[in-house]
């Protein structure tokens, strides 16, 4: 802490606790509002859900910033350390975009996959007629035997 007095630093910590608690409470209230628990009917309006979601995500990122910079003292570390820890997390931005896009696509293709599975399972039932399988197996076994004898 160095530059600030012990008493100041102590006060700052408890202020930090209050801040995190209040931000968490605001998040919960927003979440419940978006789900229609505070004013009924809110959950049916699509844009409300998006706005509320965005606000909650921004508040969570602020909480993360506060924990890393104040509680974990990242602001007292040299810039090289801070950047070498924080910059790699930017890779996650692409991971989020790519995987959510992929998840969406799975959802859209769900019906198609089910239809294709149904077609393939029909073919499977026709092809795997029990007698056919038996015949092929016997031929294989005989073939092996003749190979051994020669």
């Amino acid at each position, binding site marked *: 802490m160095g530059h600030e007095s012990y008493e100041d630093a102590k006060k700052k910590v408890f202020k*930090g606790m209050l801040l995190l608690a209040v931000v968490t409470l605001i998040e919960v209230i927003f*979440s419940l509002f978006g789900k229609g628990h505070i004013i009924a009917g809110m959950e049916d309006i699509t844009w409300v859900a998006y706005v509320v979601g965005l606000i909650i995500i921004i508040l969570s990122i602020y909480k993360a910033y506060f924990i890393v910079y104040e*509680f974990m003292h990242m602001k007292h*570390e*040299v810039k090289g350390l801070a950047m070498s820890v924080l910059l790699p997390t930017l890779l996650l931005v692409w*991971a989020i975009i790519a995987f959510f896009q992929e998840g969406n696509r*799975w*959802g859209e293709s769900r019906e198609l996959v089910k239809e294709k599975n149904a077609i393939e399972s029909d073919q499977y039932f026709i092809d795997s007629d029990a007698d056919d399988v038996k015949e092929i197996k016997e031929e294989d076994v005989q073939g092996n035997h003749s190979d051994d004898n020669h």
Partner: protein
Amino acid sequence: MAHDHDTLIEEEVAMQDDSWSGGKPPMKASYGKLMMWYFLLSDAFTFAGFLIAYGALRFSSPTWPIPDSVFSTAPFGIHEYFPGGHAPLIFVTFMSFLLIISSVTMVRAVQEGHRENQGGVSFWMLLTILGGLGFLGCQAWEWSNLIAVEHMTVTKNPFGTHTIAGQYLHPDGTLSDDTFDGGDGYLMHLAGAGHHGHGEEDHSHGSYDGEYSLTVDMKDGKMDEYVDFPGYRINKEGYILKKFKAIEGENEGQVMSEQMGPKAFGALFFFITGFHGFHVFSGVVFLLIIMVNVMSGLYAERKNGYEMVEKIGLYWHFVDLVWVFVFLVFYLL
């Protein structure tokens, strides 16, 4: 004494030839702290991978359980005092506060460490440990409530969501006044919930006179076994799927039945909160070990401002940081 002598010689040698003695750390952080930061970075990627998997599966699913209806119970029947008997997100908010408070007591322990105040460090570390144990206790209650009372497991998810509005039937098959909208959540109960853990045998009880039916879904070729009753059906896992009359959509007017919720929800929930809980647990164990060392005066001798407390502090704050995102993804959104 021989050991001290060796150390001295080592330092002298390092000073004589011009090689790096390890005395001046890169990026002005000690080796231990630097490695803790990079460990936390890698751990952050692990958690991010899990949470992104949750997001991708949620996006791919036609319906998803609504968190505020899944997590709406609290111990000691506290949720009974809330309107409608549901306390949405109240208990997990309390759990978040516990973690925030234990994070703050950890900061205080580190501060006292910088002042070389042995008593202060152990006092604030003890409070931190209590906070961590409290959080684990809450999680144990949450899990046992979900498993034993609401019958969610890794592979079975009784929390579903309606996609269309409808009107429930009475058990005898007549229409009831109980209606719901699309987007409303529901929780399926096990048949004969009185017999704990014997749900699967319940449908063979003589007291029921349901009709056994085997349905094959023509689209995906999957077979569903049900015991059919006028107002509900019981699936082979023993869950009661209530019937309702659809009042909107392409099946309007038809009688349909509830479906099990997406399977992935249970697996993701238990795996991700379990992985976080395991971090909390191992954090508590490390805090205990370091607190004992603090009390024995081990770190006071080192005269480095209780750096070990600072390192475990970094880990503990990280556990809190991860909870911020688990809380966001599982409970708030």
